[in-house]
């Protein structure tokens, strides 16, 4: 059983922040299956918030509830201080989203897809369409049919569509999926920029390295329950990875696995990779020495978000 990590910013600084999204006890049941249980979230203006979890953890259900596509079984959901169920359109007008994958009309061009969307939303100036196409570097292919677009172009059109209504909350689900390295970098650079324009970005991604690079804060959800919600920097400073060279890694691993404060132990290329709290190098060394095992090499590595994620979710993939 993983201990929940919840180290949100303190109450004083919370009050100073403009809350864009707040969920209280948000729950969704599909028959007997509880897809999301008592989810409490707060997302602030100007931040990039990462939402992580293994397959089937409840991420898409949560996003569906935030966008009014899925009706919560219980709990409340506020966007910009207004309840979504009472003020659906006035709040959703201020939200842009790509859900799971960009979906557009295959027979229309990129430009016409944006036109159709702009007409449906209403009150979007015509000049906005070339502006957002330019912003995602799609202007020169804007008149090609969507069905002829590469995955990367579809993703970029998806991002352009979210920017159409100049949203204050942008929800991006796997925004770099299918992008080439240059495109991935462009989008990764774009996400913090968007947040700095007084918006909030809600990012669902299974690319933990990406989340680590662009997110200010992350929540990790598993089996519908939020098991962590903390600033990325804080999660990363909670532990460290020790790379240890010993003569008998198998025996050493079984010794360390029995120590309560050791989070995880694995063997990689004859090295022990041990996830332990900060400042515990000497304790590890001592524990091994007590069993007659002496480390010939002991190197401390920074913990990655991936190791934190794997530790919290019990090693499940974030795909």
């Amino acid at each position: 059983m993983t201990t929940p990590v919840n180290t949100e910013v303190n109450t004083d600084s919370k009050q100073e922040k403009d809350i864009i999204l707040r969920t209280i006890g948000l729950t969704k049941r599909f028959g007997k299956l509880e897809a999301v249980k008592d989810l409490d979230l707060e997302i602030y203006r100007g931040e990039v918030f990462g939402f992580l979890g293994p397959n089937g953890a409840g991420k898409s259900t949560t996003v569906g509830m935030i966008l009014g596509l899925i009706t919560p079984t219980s709990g409340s959901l506020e966007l910009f201080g207004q309840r979504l169920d009472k003020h659906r359109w006035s709040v959703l007008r201020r939200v842009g989203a790509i859900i799971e994958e960009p979906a557009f009309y295959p027979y229309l061009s990129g430009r016409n897809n944006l036109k159709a969307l702009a007409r449906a939303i209403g009150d979007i100036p015509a000049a906005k369409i070339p502006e957002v196409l330019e912003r995602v570097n799609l202007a020169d292919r804007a008149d090609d049919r969507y069905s002829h677009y590469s995955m990367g172009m579809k993703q970029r059109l998806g991002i352009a569509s979210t920017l159409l209504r100049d949203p204050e909350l942008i929800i991006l689900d796997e925004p770099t999926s299918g992008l080439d390295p240059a495109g991935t970098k462009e989008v990764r650079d774009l996400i913090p920029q968007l947040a700095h324009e007084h918006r909030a970005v809600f990012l669902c991604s299974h690319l933990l390295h990406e989340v680590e690079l662009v997110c200010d804060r992350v929540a990790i959800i598993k089996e519908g329950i939020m098991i962590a919600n903390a600033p990325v920097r804080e999660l990363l400073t909670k532990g460290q990875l020790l790379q240890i060279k010993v003569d008998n890694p198998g025996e050493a691993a079984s010794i360390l696995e029995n120590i309560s404060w050791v989070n995880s132990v694995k063997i990689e290329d004859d090295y022990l990779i041990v996830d332990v709290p900060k400042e515990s190098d000497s304790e590890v060394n001592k524990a091994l020495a007590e069993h007659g095992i002496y480390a010939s090499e002991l190197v401390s590595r920074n913990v990655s978000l991936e190791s934190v994620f794997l530790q919290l979710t019990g090693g499940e993939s974030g795909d």
Partner: protein
Amino acid sequence: MTKLIAAELFKLRKRLMSRVLLYVLVGVLVVFYLILLAVSQALPTGSNPRLGDIQNLLGLPVAIPFALSMIAGFGTLLAVILVASSIGNEYNWRTIRTMVISSESRFKLLGAKLISAAILVLIGMVIGVITGFVMSLITTAIGGYAFNFDFLTGEYLWEQFLQFWRTFFVLIPYATLAFLFAIVGRSAMAGIGLGIGVYIVESLITTFMVLAGGWVARVPDYLLANNVNAITALASLPEGFNMGGGFGDITFQMPGVTHAFITLTIYSLAFLAIAFYVFRKRDVAG
């Protein structure tokens, strides 16, 4: 709502399928007129008692009711395809979530879809009527029949105006049924398949029920096809050229027009109510 209708019309207008359906309707009318002309030319005068009826159909006074009668039959299938794909393809292309998020309400989204599809159906009907009229002019000229526009009286035009709206009315139950099936089945194919399936199968079942006699023979009065036939029969077409009303040698006793109007209205409203309810209540998941 007007914004959503504008968006829907924009999508339908840009879509190749909308134009293909229109070309099919026009093509079928053209081919039908040419076949009638060929038959009327091939049969020697007095050889067949129906020849006069065929020549009547080619004539201008019957051109509009005949075109409307064709639209009520074949056009229903095209309307089913148009309406079912208008909502069903949103599921197929996974654009339904984007559209729901971008719409003021789910109710308005469905309303806009229905209104824009209805506008396109009406445009198709007008083009169908014009095609019928033009083909009648052409076949009259080719056939060497006399042109006579004396029939164009106010009464005639009013009757055709009424028949136009009656024809539109009889398309509605099947179109709304297809709309409902597309929403429940979350796909265009569910709407098109079941919509057309009901259209075809119901006619067959109606025949068997009439053959069975007794109270079973009256059941079709409470289904769709017999009531549609009762309304389309109001067109002033030569006997035997009305759509429906019989199957081979079997003659159906059709319900009254008021009965037909009420029954079809109830069906259409029920299909719409269920479609809106399901769409409003159901989660739009991936």
